[in-house]
């Protein structure tokens, strides 16, 4: 299978999963705050192309794509959204606290910026233990405003830790544009360099670019050259939290929205594959594959039992 086709398959898979969640969210059975990745899938797919299962990933509130691209179990994700016992945290964490240790997706957390130091701590462990693996920290451009980002990056640079910082710059923190949060000429890449990271920015909707540029950074990290940051310019299609489109609120310029929709990673990849001659039937096949997987995951999530609140007192302390 061509690399492009593989990317498309993965981007499409995440897209359709997120759309299925969105479609069913209004049934009021997935009762937890949910931040969809729709529009930003190319980042996770491009980065994950260079990672092994041994590499460890941390993420933020908007984690579905990162979890899935790293190989996190779809069934356990959907079950988690439904608050079921078979969910990846047994219903305790919900959408904002995903984990699939077998896949090397350690965790996502709900407080902006607060999983960044965890990823760096993971890298510290990897370095001290001389492990043949690295860490990845995903976060939004809003998280770079937190001191936690800065302090973590400083320490990673100081000790040349094997960690890649992936900043998904989707231009907004909830409804707030960059203009109320960062000075006009802020370059996250320059900032990262000044802190001591190798840093570069890419078109986050171009999965091949994400994959190839991050491959170089990751090679450097694995070679012991110290941590790096990749800033991926991208865009979220739907509301910050929840299943709907919210451009009726007018917080994003119409042209900006249109510009980014025209560069939807699914569309861009599909166009490229069409141009390369992928047939309608092959496209449909891919869709059908994903649909089957999704249906199975939803069916099994719905069929799964709820966790028993009698066990609520368990795991407050480690045994």
């Amino acid at each position, binding site marked *: 299978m061509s690399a492009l086709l593989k990317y498309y398959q993965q981007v499409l898979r995440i897209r359709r999963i997120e759309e299925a969640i969105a479609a069913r*969210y*209004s049934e*009021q059975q997935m*009762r*937890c*705050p*949910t931040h969809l990745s729709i529009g930003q899938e190319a980042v996770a797919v491009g980065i994950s192309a260079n990672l092994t299962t041994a590499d460890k990933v941390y993420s933020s509130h908007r984690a579905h794509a990162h979890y899935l691209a790293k190989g996190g179990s779809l069934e356990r994700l959907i079950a988690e959204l439904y*608050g*079921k016992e078979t*969910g990846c*945290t*047994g*219903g*305790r*964490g*919900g*959408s*904002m*606290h995903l984990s699939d240790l077998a896949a090397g997706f350690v965790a996502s*957390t*709900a*407080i*902006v*910026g607060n999983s960044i130091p965890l990823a760096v701590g993971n890298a510290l462990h990897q370095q001290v233990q001389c492990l043949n693996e690295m860490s990845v920290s995903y976060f939004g451009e*809003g*998280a770079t*405003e*937190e*001191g*936690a980002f800065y302090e973590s990056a400083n320490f990673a640079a100081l000790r040349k830790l094997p960690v890649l910082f992936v900043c998904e710059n989707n231009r907004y*923190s*909830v*409804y*707030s544009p960059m203009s*109320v*949060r*960062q000075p006009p000429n802020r370059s996250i890449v320059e900032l990262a360099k000044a802190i001591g990271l190798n840093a570069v920015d890419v078109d986050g909707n171009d999965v091949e670019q994400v994959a190839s540029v991050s491959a170089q950074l990751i090679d450097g990290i694995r070679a012991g050259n110290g941590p790096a940051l990749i800033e991926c310019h991208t865009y979220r299609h739907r509301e910050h*939290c*929840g*299943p709907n489109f919210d451009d009726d*609120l*007018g*917080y994003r310029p119409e042209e900006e929205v249109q510009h980014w929709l025209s560069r939807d990673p699914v569309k861009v990849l599909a166009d490229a594959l069409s141009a390369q001659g992928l047939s309608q039937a092959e496209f449909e096949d891919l869709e059908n594959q994903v649909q089957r997987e999704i249906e199975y995951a939803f069916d099994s999530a719905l069929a799964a039992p*709820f*966790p*028993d*609140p009698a066990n*609520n*007192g368990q795991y*407050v302390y480690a045994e």
Partner: protein
Amino acid sequence: MQNKAMTTFAEQVNRAQHEAMKADPGMLVFGLGLTDPKGIFGTTSGLGEAFGEQRAFDMPTAENGMTGIAVGAALAGSRVLMTHQRLDFFLLAMDQLVNNAAKWHYMFNGQMKVPLTIRLIIGRGWGQGPTHAQNLQSWFAHIPGLKVIVPSTTDAVANQLYSAIMDDSPVIFIEHRWLHQQQCEQARIGDITAKPQSVRIHRTGTDFTIVANSYMVLEALVAAKQLSALGVETDVVETSELEPATWQPVYDSVSKTGRVIICDSAHTSFSVASEIMCSVTEKCFGSLKQVPIRMGLPDYPEPTSIALTKHFYPTADSITKMVMSSLQREIPKSVYQNIGNDRTRPHDVPGEWFKGPF
């Protein structure tokens, strides 16, 4: 605000801010999302338009630095109100709050003041989960130099917030999110500039005292009705200021009834309920007919799944049952079955209107 018969808690919170900004032309108000289209559950809507973005503004995601900036502006002479959408996010700012805001007036020997109010919103339900539903009121109450105000009712909240803002000491103002849609007749809203009551007696009775604050006041009032139907008449006493020196009406009530249950909306151990129970024991030891009861959340984090939160939060029913059992009185089966039956909504939403997702 508009001239309509009813108003909500969120509207009153909003009104207090508008009034304060008008009354003090130097006042600043800021917070994440303050001027966005949703305006922090509608509680800050219109402030940007009315007062301009120099005085009412959104901010970077940087809770610690921005809290320090709020303190610095307050020290310089700007009255400041800052809002955080969840108390949990404010954990980042404890250094600025405790080491600076709380102590400044004291450690600089009264030479400067910190006219700063910080609104913190407590999440609950719809999968808020472990890091979006914490109420750390006991932390703030433990720190000398901070005032802690925890409102519960729509008729009082504008007055309470306005007074907090106008206070020259730092005030932590903790709003339970389930209160925001609470309705009240406009006619019942009093003078916004009056001195608010620290303790409020919502109902009187001679058999038992129910002490509560924040959202638990609403549950306590339902419980009081249930108990009355069962022949137990209660004082319902709200401690909206977390300052033992203001709690005399609590002590008076317990001295009268000899029995007390203290409801908390935070983890039970080392809690505000613990302090109230302690103070009550100190002041009313001779009058106590039975050991005081405290009732709060279990000592584990809020899980996310709806299946796991069913009994996480005490309700009116829990209060009623606890009071009756402490009196060693049975609840007649017929009555017992009806308790709580008027609530058909799922337990994890404040009302049918709530559809998620945040």
